[in-house]
């Protein structure tokens, strides 16, 4: 059953879409176009001297081993953040979906972290896990772990993944819960009558029915890990120690804003935009086929 709106006038549909279009044009296409233009220029921070350098900025990037390291690192981070926050959120959602006493309270509490801004998340986790200020660091040290994310790159990366995943759990939880509640009870009950145990019921009935939600969240989480982790990285590690937590988006910021290398930074943004477009494209082309709506 397809619903179709029939418009009498030719202009009305355009008029209705106009505000949305205007917003996309002003806040996405225009800045994106500016980034593309900027990426072909060499300019000082004040914009006093500008020279057109063709693709020099891009070539400089590809000559920089640190840039490839940042690409690999970003993919690793995105994957780790998406997988850990999706799986935890699903687990929590399945638990909260059960008829529990005080279920609403649990649900509300689980949604809370989403309201916290990324930089604040960074500060919160620093308070818990800073080598000298951290509340939890003391227990880690007592347990014989040499906890020092200021110098140990792997520990710093773990810290970022933890904090970023933690913040995203709420969002995922919310969608999973909605997805779970929209699954007809009768299907599950039928499976139960057929003698399927809870685990079996989950994997053969619930999970496939949840697949559109999972797919949607996967796209959202990857994009989140690519871009929104900026605030967390900036407050927690500033890309250090060494370069162990410098992701692509953080590199755009340090090179452009701190380094005053606007051309190189713009070239990075353009590539970053390209990566995300391609990723999303791949997800819609190949992953979506596996999704049953």
């Amino acid at each position, binding site marked *: 059953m397809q619903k179709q709106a029939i418009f009498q006038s030719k202009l009305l549909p355009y008029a209705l879409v106009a505000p949305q279009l205007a917003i996309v044009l002003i806040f996405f296409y225009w800045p994106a176009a500016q980034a593309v233009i900027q990426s072909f220029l060499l300019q*000082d921070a*004040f914009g006093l001297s500008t020279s057109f350098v063709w693709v020099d900025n891009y070539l400089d990037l590809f000559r920089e081993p640190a840039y490839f390291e940042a690409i690999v690192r970003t993919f690793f981070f995105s994957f780790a953040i998406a997988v850990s926050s999706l799986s935890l959120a699903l687990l929590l959602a399945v638990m909260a979906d059960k008829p529990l006493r005080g279920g609403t309270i649990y649900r509300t509490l689980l949604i809370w972290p989403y309201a916290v801004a990324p930089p604040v998340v960074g500060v919160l986790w620093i308070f818990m896990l800073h080598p000298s200020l951290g509340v939890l660091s003391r227990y880690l040290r007592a347990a014989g772990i040499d906890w020092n994310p200021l110098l140990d790159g792997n520990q710093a990366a773990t810290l970022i993944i933890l904090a970023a995943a933690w913040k995203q759990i709420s969002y995922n939880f919310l969608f999973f819960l909605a997805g779970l509640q929209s699954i007809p009870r009768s299907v599950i009950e039928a499976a139960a009558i057929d003698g399927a145990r809870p685990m079996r019921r989950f994997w053969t009935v619930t999970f496939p029915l949840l697949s559109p939600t999972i797919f949607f969240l996967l796209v959202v989480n990857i994009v989140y890990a690519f871009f929104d982790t900026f605030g967390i990285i900036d407050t927690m590690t500033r*890309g250090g*120690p*060494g370069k162990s937590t410098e992701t692509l988006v953080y590199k755009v910021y*340090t090179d452009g*804003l*701190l380094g005053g290398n606007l051309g190189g930074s713009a070239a990075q943004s353009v590539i970053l935009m390209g990566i995300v477009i391609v990723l999303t494209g791949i997800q819609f082309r190949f992953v979506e086929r596996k999704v049953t709506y």
Partner: protein
Amino acid sequence: MALRPFAAAAAFAVTFGFAASPALAATEIQWWHAMTGANNDVIVKLANDFNASQSDYKVIPTYKGNYPDTMNAGIAAFRAGNAPHIMQVFEVGTATMMAATGAVKPVYKLMAETGEKFDPKAYLPAITGYYSTSKGEMLSFPFNSSSTVMWVNLDELKKANVEIPKTWPEVFDAAKKLHANGHPTCGFSNSWVTWVNLEQLSAWHNVPLSTKANGLDGFDTVLEFNGPLQVKHLEKLVELQKDKTYDYAGRTNTGEGRFTSGECPLYLTSSAFFGNVKAQAKFNFTAVPMPYYPDVKGAPQNSIIGGASLWVMGGKSAEEYKGVAKFLAFLSDTDRQVYIHKASGYLPITKAAYEKAKAEGFYKDQPYLETPLLELTNKEPTENSRGLRLGNMVQLRDVWSEEIEQALAGKKTAKQALDAAVERGNQMLRQFEKTAVK
């Protein structure tokens, strides 16, 4: 920014050439800064005092975030064609500002053009040298200057029966004793890892950080801080990091609480840390000059400054510049400098103000407030200790920090790390040279 009724009236009066009273025709001078807390109060008071002292100009201070934020806000505003008149820029932004010929108005030119009273000799050369050309022309006006000192927890040293160390070998011994006596996580440490262990260390021992007088004489400067002194120093830190006799406390000043909490009894950081120490430390403390290596000939030399200076932006009207010049002359006043010094812990910038504070016995009970001044004026500055002027210094410091972290984490030797820091830094300097306005 919404115009206040008063400002709107003033603008209206100016626009339509009404014979307004002088109070209404005050020319506004925008002043962007990065000062918070007590230091913000000082800024507001200075602006208010200036506005009350005359009726032709009105200085309006605006807080724009931390140092890098303020600088970026100023640059963005300039690109959009509405830069403030005065911008507070931290010392590492100096090269970037200087390279922007046309975007800024050098202070010496401003003073000459407006005919405002200005004697470059009245200022402390150790401070103004950082912000001047090699010919001694003042480019920006030093506002809040500090230097690196070693903060000492006197109570803990007494407990461990340790004398205040003067040289680096003494610091290492003292730190080992303290480490064994109640400080297992930190014998000594420091903030601003590159400022303390590369920039100041080099100046303090009269060793170059980079060629061309550390960049003061040209943007074609080449880094050379991978010499024996700096390598030896970093090797020692790496060795002591293993058992936390030295414990790395991060790239900026986030680790400073480790001194005030009593965790690290010896801590090298800015003299401007004083306000926090005074407010938070529950022990007897002092600040002594940076340690030095006695086997280096001529050490200690003199330290270089940190902090920030005021840059005057270009493209404003003659009338506005007159007001800016008057304001800078107002700030140079001896009593005002003494006030800034006492209220903020930052250094006085004129010789007269320093003498006056001394004569008033200000340093008698608080000798540690004089420590940075004694360091800065210890000897006549040399090529290696006048200051630094390296492009993209903010990011350079990040790159150097990255490499030092690699060494401290045991992934590279000290020599490898400093070689890499020099090499990567030089690439960035060449990039800066390409974009700098010739």
